[in-house]
């Protein structure tokens, strides 16, 4: 009930949720929504302007842009969610261990985290994908390589404050093992604030994936991913700008909706957790 009340007051949260729900629906029901096959090449229909038959026109190979944008939702959202989930879980695990055990383990983990945080992450991601070769696996690897450290630092901070609370002492007194306490008490309590961070990171990740794909270092060209579509359409920018406009709008709107959701969640969340997130 409390959450519902707060939600009503927070327009951002609502707008963001509705938009994301829409994108999710597009991704799930893509084959039913898209009027054409996204990979259907029709040379005689190439570069048609937006109109009755093709809502967003066609691209350089005569493929329907609307259908490709709809199918692109699958790639962008799915990849971003995979990357963020891996980062979140990895960071939460390592951060909980560091925060819970403290001492030498904590010292060692946080030293590594500090060193990794000192890297400009996009440059390293670019380097990893560029060197290992462009593929979906390498794209995920590049975005996970430095992505987890942020979560590690935040979860460690959260765990340090949770650890001091009474119910953890009670669980220990009742004979709970370390593993049990971490999995059953620490992680569920550290999770909500981390979820906000993760939501905001989904938008960053969508942008990174699109940028790398645009540079030709992410998802490869025939795939209807938004960044890859822009990369393909680049040559037509001056003659047929509609090829460029719609995939870009899709990226902006999806990033915006995750930003709205994250911001809204942060506002709803209690101020104590907000402080940790702002660090």
């Amino acid at each position: 009930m409390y959450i519902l009340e707060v939600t009503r007051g927070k327009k951002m949260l609502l707008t963001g949720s509705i938009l994301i729900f829409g994108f999710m629906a597009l991704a799930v029901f893509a084959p039913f929504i898209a009027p054409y096959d996204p990979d259907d090449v029709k040379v005689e229909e190439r570069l048609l302007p937006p109109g009755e038959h093709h809502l967003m026109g066609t691209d350089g190979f005569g493929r329907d842009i609307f259908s490709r944008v709809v199918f692109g939702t699958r790639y962008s959202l799915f990849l971003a969610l995979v990357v963020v989930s891996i980062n979140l879980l990895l960071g939460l695990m390592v951060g909980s261990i560091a925060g819970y055990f403290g001492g030498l383990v904590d010292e060692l983990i946080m030293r590594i985290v500090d060193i990794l945080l000192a890297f400009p992450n996009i440059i390293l991601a670019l380097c990893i994908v560029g060197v290992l070769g462009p593929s979906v696996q390498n794209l995920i690897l590049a975005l996970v390589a430095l992505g987890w450290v942020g979560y590690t630092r935040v979860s460690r901070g959260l765990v340090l404050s949770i650890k001091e609370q009474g119910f953890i002492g009670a669980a220990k007194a009742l004979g709970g093992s370390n593993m049990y306490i971490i999995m059953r008490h620490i992680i569920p309590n550290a999770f909500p604030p981390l979820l906000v961070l993760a939501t905001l990171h989904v938008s960053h990740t969508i942008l990174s994936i699109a940028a790398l794909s645009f540079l030709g270092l992410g998802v490869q060209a025939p795939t209807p991913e938004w960044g890859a579509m822009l990369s393909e359409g680049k040559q037509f920018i001056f003659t047929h700008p509609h090829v460029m406009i719609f995939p870009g709008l899709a990226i902006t709107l999806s990033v915006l909706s995750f930003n709205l959701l994250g911001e809204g969640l942060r506002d709803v969340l209690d101020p104590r957790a907000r402080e940790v997130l702002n660090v």
Partner: protein
Amino acid sequence: MKLNKRTTVDVSSPCRAGFPRPGGKKGNIVMRRLLIQRLVSAVFVMLIASFLSFSLLFSAPGNPAETILRQQSGLDPTYDEIELFMKRHDLNRPFLVQCLQWLYLLTHGKLGVSLRTGEPVLEEFTARFGATFQLAVAAMALSVIIGLPIGVFAATRPNSLFDHIIRIVSLAGVSIPEFWLGLMLMLCFSLALGWLPCFGHGTVSHLVLPVVTLAVGITAFLVRFVRTNMLEVLNLDYIKTAKAKGLREVVIVWKHALKNALIPVITILGTQLGHLLAGAVIVETVFSWPGIGKFFVDSIYARDYPVIQGFVLIIAAIYVLVNLLVDILYVYLDPRVRYEGRS
């Protein structure tokens, strides 16, 4: 430093007893320890960066010699040609030997030679650094000039119409992908309106579109960050005191509050450098700007290993150095840090 020798608290200073003046002995010790700690960690970061960039390139699939030779001649190279090329560039030695060799050369300021152009990597970097620096400084300056006043203004009128509009616009600003924004600006201002050139480098008019593209994201970020910080500072007791004293609002906001709200902003500008570098890579590619970002991407396409290694290392070094400077500046600007240490 002169300050190190001071043993007594300067009587003429307006600081009360019990509060050593900033820069006093105790403050200096904490400050020095902090600086040494940062320096040591910076050296470690650089060592690990060089090792990482080296081992990463060693694990790459595909033969760089083959790629380069094919690019140079346009034909498939023969086995002998590849062997010769690898021997000449020491590419067929064991990993550890190559790594140590590289580190040795590194200590002598040699970053190797570009496989594509045959020029030393360091020279390739310095030749292009100016163009990127120009872009980065202009974008940063533009962001601060626009973002700072808007952020402060929005914070002084929370929940007003202006505040809401700024909030939505800035949220949209951080959501637009830079490469797309650049292309759209190009479409609008060079193709449709014909006001500005879309490619090339040299005059001020060439600078406008890339700088604006790069600045939009940072400005939006800055507006939000300044607003949050300013709101926090405006709720502090000393601002209430200033109001009770009857100071004009302009003086309170722009002099007393801004001073404290600016400290975190300076720190965040250091971390925005990473954003700026990443943005430069994309913006330079879009606008064919002859800077380090475009050269870096072109080197990745061509698998020009020495350039990738060297550039990652130099960029990491710049990043670490700037953040070190920001840390020092932070300690200098915020006397609280000098006594308590930064936790």
